[in-house]
């Protein structure tokens, strides 16, 4: 009888204690479940798209590089010496009357031609800094592009830079198509070079970062007021650029950049021991650190055993059962407020620039796409963004895509150097957090002022 009572007593006591047992599951549990119930096809498509964008970018760069090396350099240089162009007195160049490609002789511009230039400037043509004459009767067999490049090649760099590729191209095009035999005048004061040219440069961009929150329903993001608990931060981007002129008005810009983005998560208090002793018993937990912080841009997995975190405003700090058992917060010193999430990407942009006007200083409109690969997702204490990371943000997509747009102001310096000043906006078109981690989507965006220098070849 006593044994029976004893058994029931054990059963009852264990039942009372364990029947209603509740415990916080690990933060990554939902992520695992969500991934398991999601279809895998979407994840497979991203790398393929990235590879396609990268392949197109490499192809374009390769084609223009080849074009530049073999047509604009070696082949052209051999023929430049044979070209029969003589500059008008307005241009301070020595005459060089020789035969053109194929051995044909091209006559030097006559005195009449020079007079025509003078007359042209007198009858209201744009007063040119220079004028370039060529007898196009003998050029009719030449391709327009070849004509334009070759003609420009006669001029020294500094002068060539002042000849409008567009105007020369249009003039030559008209002459060749009409084959009228008229003497053509190509003059300009613009600062563009002919198309097919390539420039390389570097840029530095201070950048203002934040994100757009877009819920998938009315319920999304409603439990935690992220908008009031997270703030924008300033970061920077550095990179190398290549500019390839596709046409007189269109330029392709690509390259590689090291981009920093992120946000500041406020109203998170951190505590530490006055002697900076570890706050957790490493023997009890199966995880290195028992705390996480929910943010709109993923969950932060904290990893510094010297810090304990508490949320001042809502329930963003998750603490599992291994957290600082028996610790007395009163004995700890309050540390900095808030944490900063930083996302570092390597980025390959493919941006098209359209020339709006060019009067010494060029103003261009630009737009395109950028593919970025996540390099680092460290989290820092306070407003620090460089030293002593305290954890990482989990659930961030490895590949991301963004739309890029803005204006570009190109200011010629000396020789072939150009200074670029480009107010630029960038918006992620793919949510930065993997599907299923959050109930809504966060799309980071940034406004930057790209400043850089390029050298044109």
């Amino acid at each position: 009888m006593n044994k029976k009572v004893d058994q029931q007593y054990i059963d009852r006591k264990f039942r009372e204690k364990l029947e209603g047992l509740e415990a916080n599951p690990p933060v990554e549990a939902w992520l695992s479940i969500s991934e398991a119930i999601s279809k895998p096809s979407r994840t497979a498509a991203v790398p393929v798209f990235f590879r396609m964008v990268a392949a197109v970018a490499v192809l374009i760069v390769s084609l223009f590089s080849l074009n530049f090396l073999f047509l604009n350099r070696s082949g052209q240089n051999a023929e430049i010496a044979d070209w029969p162009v003589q500059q008008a007195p307005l241009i301070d160049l020595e005459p060089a009357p020789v035969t053109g490609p194929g051995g044909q002789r091209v006559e030097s511009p006559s005195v009449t031609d020079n007079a025509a230039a003078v007359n042209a400037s007198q009858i209201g043509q744009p007063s040119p800094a220079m004028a370039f004459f060529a007898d196009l009767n003998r050029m009719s067999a030449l391709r327009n592009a070849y004509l334009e490049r070759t003609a420009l090649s006669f001029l020294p760099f500094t002068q060539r830079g002042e000849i409008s590729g567009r105007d020369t191209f249009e003039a030559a095009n008209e002459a060749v198509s009409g084959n009228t035999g008229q003497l053509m005048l190509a003059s300009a004061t613009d600062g563009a070079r002919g198309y097919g040219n390539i420039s390389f440069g570097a840029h530095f961009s201070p950048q203002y970062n934040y994100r757009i929150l877009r819920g998938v329903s009315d319920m999304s993001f409603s439990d935690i007021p992220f908008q009031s608990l997270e703030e924008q931060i300033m970061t920077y981007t550095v990179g190398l650029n290549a500019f390839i002129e596709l046409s007189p008005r269109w330029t392709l810009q690509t390259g590689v950049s090291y981009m920093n983005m992120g946000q500041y998560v406020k109203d998170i208090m951190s505590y530490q021991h006055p002697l900076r002793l570890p706050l957790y018993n490493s023997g009890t937990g199966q995880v290195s650190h028992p705390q996480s912080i929910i943010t709109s841009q993923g969950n932060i997995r904290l990893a510094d055993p010297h810090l304990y975190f508490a949320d001042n405003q809502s329930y963003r700090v998750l603490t599992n059962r291994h957290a600082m058992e028996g610790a007395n917060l009163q004995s700890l010193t309050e540390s900095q407020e808030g944490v900063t999430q930083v996302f570092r990407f390597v980025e390959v942009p493919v941006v098209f620039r359209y020339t709006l006007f060019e009067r010494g200083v060029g103003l261009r409109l630009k737009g395109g796409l950028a593919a970025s690969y996540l390099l680092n997702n460290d989290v820092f204490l306070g407003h620090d963004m460089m030293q002593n990371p305290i954890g990482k943000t989990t659930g961030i997509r490895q590949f991301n895509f963004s739309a890029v747009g803005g204006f570009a102001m190109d200011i010629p310096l000396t020789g072939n150097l150009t200074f670029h000043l480009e107010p630029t906006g960038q918006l992620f078109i793919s949510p930065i957090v993997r599907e299923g981690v959050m109930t809504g989507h966060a799309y980071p965006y940034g406004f930057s002022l790209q400043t850089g220098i390029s050298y044109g070849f």
Partner: protein
Amino acid sequence: MQSRKVDQYRLYAMYSRKMYGICLRYAASTDEAQDILQEGFIRVFKHLSSYKGKGSLEGWIRRIFVNTAIEKYRERIYHLSVDEVGNDGEFVHENMGVEALNVRDILTVVQQLPVQYRMVFNLYAIEGYSHKEIAEALDISESTARSNLARARRILKHKLNKEFEVILQAI
């Protein structure tokens, strides 16, 4: 698609703490508990449309988790030696002080039971299964179920040692 995911997340947020508690009782470690939790919620989401509102949703979900734990046990049992399945001699633990006996420690004691004893004890003492139901669920005989339960109790009692009576009074 997205709204369904939101609903799933809300359901998860609502019941994950309770279900994880169940998982911890049936598992020997947090990793194992997390496996049961994941498998259980996948089944819940998969079969949610079959819930007709008969009985409480929590009870329905709870049954799925208990069944998941049983199936996990059945999967594991083929890979375990007899000693691991149930052998009093394998169970070694230091005495516990009165001050340390809280829910966490009780859970730890249960988690350290040999796997079959743990299953039987959970199903009988906490879920309220009969020996016949336990025998069918675990594919063992009723007498084995009774024997396992008795041994589980003996281990638990031994575990709590001489201070058991005092400790239980203090709970």
